[in-house]
């Protein structure tokens, strides 16, 4: 399995990982190589096998829907890179290049 640089760029955008051209080229080679090793799975016929997502026998673990105070607002915001008026604060969601109105 060989990935193109365009594939890598697309996945990096999906994953919100900013990388320079050198990193993307490295990533292209390394991911292609790792995916090559992973192709060994195609040796197995798994058509009749059901998938395992988790290994414990519990299903639908429920709890009472009770309000419990764990942190106050100050504690919840203490690690925020930026906050204002009790909210997490972020740069404009709609940048100019997105074509949206601010």
């Amino acid at each position, binding site marked *: 399995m060989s*990935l193109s640089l365009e*594939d*890598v760029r697309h*996945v*990096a955008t*999906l*994953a*919100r*990982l*900013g*990388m320079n051209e050198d*990193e993307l080229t490295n*990533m292209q080679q*390394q*991911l292609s*190589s*790792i*995916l090559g*090793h*992973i*192709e*060994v*799975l*195609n*040796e*197995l016929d*798994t058509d009749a*096998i*059901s*998938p*395992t*997502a*988790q*290994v*414990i*026998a*519990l299903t639908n*673990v429920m*709890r009472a829907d009770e309000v419990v105070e*764990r*942190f106050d607002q100050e*504690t*919840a915001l*203490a*690690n*925020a*890179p*930026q906050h204002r008026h009790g909210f*997490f604060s*972020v*740069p*404009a*969601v*709609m*940048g*100019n*290049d*997105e074509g949206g109105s601010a």
Partner: protein
Amino acid sequence: MSLPNDLTLLTAAESRKLLDNHEISSVELTHAYLTRIQEVEPKIHSYLHLMTDVALSQANAADKRIEHGQIDDLTGIPVALKDILCTTDAPTTAASKILDGYMSPYDATVVTRLREQGAVFLGKTNTDEFAMGSSTENSAFGPTINPWGENRVPGGSSGGSAAAVAAREATISLGSDTGGSIRQPAGFCGVVGLKPTYGRVSRFGLLPFASSLDQIGPFARTVEDAAIMLRAIGGHDPMDSTSVPIEVPNYEAAFRQDLAGVKIGVAKEYSVDGMEPGVDAAMKAALQQLQDLGAELVPVSLPHTEYALATYYITAPAEASANLARYDGVRFGNRIEGDNLIETYMRTRGEGFGAEVKRRIMLGTYALSSGYYDAYYVKAQKVRTLIKQDFDKAFESVDAIVAPTSPTVAFELGSRTDDPYAMYLADVFTIPANMAGIPGISLPCGFSDGLPVGMQLLGKSFDETNLLSIAHAYEQAANVYQELAHI
């Protein structure tokens, strides 16, 4: 128990007796470790954050508890915590720049349980960034060095916790194991490392890597100490819906001295090209020792073992890519501002994560992306079923399975950092247990050119009792655990 001149030579069980008899105090014991840490830490770098003030105040409180007879197994015992477990009184960074300086507003459940027991926290230990790696070289804050050889890695990802116990910088430590991150470094550092059954220990407050595989467990010098720690941290927790409500038994009560009537499986699949001859030799001697103790060695087949590594490198990165989406520089962690929100995400994550973490997020995102989901992710989940069925079938005829922990001993620093897949191969024998959810323990079984060789025992789900009992009988007979790193 006679009093050694260096208190860091004591196991937790030995310290317990001396503390309860008032022959030593927790403050003395803690000071012995703090002195030892000052001495060896410049060479080893097990710790990312020392908790000296917290430790001394906990030791004082523990001494008062002991005076009043309010004694639990770990009251006054100095322990170390992998820096991927949330603590309110020391930073929690997962050895990542993106979390540099992060202070958790809550404790992990295992941390809460240790506090309730009155344990002493010496500090937070080094790890591969977000537990992704096999050598602790992926830490953003520099590697840990194996106490057995200054140019050798300690293994990983919990390399700091393994080295801390091997270098006697803590009595017991906690790590996490997603594909071998407790057992493999335990093997490389010549200590005991236990990955409990998935669901045995609450993962609440463990920074998640691959949620269907992650499990917290102890490093210790003896199987007994590992059992003591598992009893302290194990059991159901309402904060983790995947922790299973099954009673945590008294493991030490089931310890035995011989293995008469015990059937131990030996799988031919746990022998691969590139196995180090010294590892083979130590394993042969260990198998003989198990037989001498009365165990019957039974050939078993785990035919899908060779597919476990590939299955893991789809499943774990896929889960990681979702879990690590939370590090976006909005609610916590470091932010690197861009022109708009998307740019801010891209820069924060692109510059905050190291190379291996990015590689795994990329791999996982790709495996889950439109058009590839069935070919990779679902395929891996189906092969996971086959791996689990292999173990289910084997355990119909044996009580445990024995295998080397790793194909080699600790490798040289820098020798695998340029080849991600060569690094991944270090976990080839430990990954299958995580895929099946079963418990596994690594314990020292000999040496190859002066470096420790780890023997791995795998057990049935939630049957840590048998696993620890077999491990204990072997350990006491083989006596390899008494050899300490000369550091």
